[in-house]
């Protein structure tokens, strides 16, 4: 491999990895937003509304 071959290999891997990471961040955030939207749109459970019974649901 020529000197430029090594240079382009290094630059290619670095910038491809950073772009892939950025894309995964976006898709992970989108997935969470969808889950949050589903929770927001679903009817609130009784336990969450009643302060006497509100607490961790396991």
């Amino acid at each position, binding site marked *: 491999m020529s*000197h430029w071959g090594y240079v382009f290999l*290094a630059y290619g891997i670095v910038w491809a990895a950073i772009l892939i990471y950025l894309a995964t*961040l976006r898709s992970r955030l989108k997935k969470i937003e969808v889950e*949050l939207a589903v929770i927001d749109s679903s009817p609130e459970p009784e*336990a*969450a509304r009643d302060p006497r019974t509100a607490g961790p649901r396991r």
Partner: protein
Amino acid sequence: MTAKTGKATRILGALALFFVVLGLYWGLVMAPPDAYQGDTQRIMYLHIPSILIAYLSFFIVFVGSCLFLWKRERRDDVLAYAAAEIGVLFTALTIIEGAIWGKPTWGVWWTWDARLTLTAILLLIFIAYLMLRALIEEEDRAAVCGAILGIIGFLDIPLIHMSVYWWRTLHQPPSILRPDKAPWDNIHPAMLVALGLNFVAFVLLYFYLLSRRIRLGERQEELRQRKLYGRR
């Protein structure tokens, strides 16, 4: 995320992109080839900023972990977790760039040199950190265990930095930040500009990625709280 922080993140992203393009142009076109290594030396414009960003990232993990263990505030844990993930990315990239640079200059992709080995150990420690965070289901326990491992992992960095002085290593000692000479006495000015531009690009890019990863961590925390306590 407020509209103000969202705008700030976008400005940071645009600035990072500008400096990335400028850094690429200066590193690949404007900077002269090295007298001994030729064009292969251009990998340095990625290699040095990558490892410095990894150090910065793990320093943030260290600070966030100490604060979390002291005050038990979730935002410190979110910060440490976000920084650890990005630190792993940049450490892995540093090792890959080093291997690609090592092949034409040293004749090998990898050698069990003190600095290389300690950097690989740093990567493994923080991969273990991410695995631990993913595998422990109880979030508070995962955060405490992660914080302890994050603090221990950071202690590897001074060892990596000093390894070239303490042991006979194949990896060269610092050629720019030397205590006996100013940076401009060691390197061609155009190379120094290329390195500086790429460093600024990596710093801006790092804070852009970190702000996006923190945003993800905050929303994950919100989702966890809502699943535990219902809609608020």
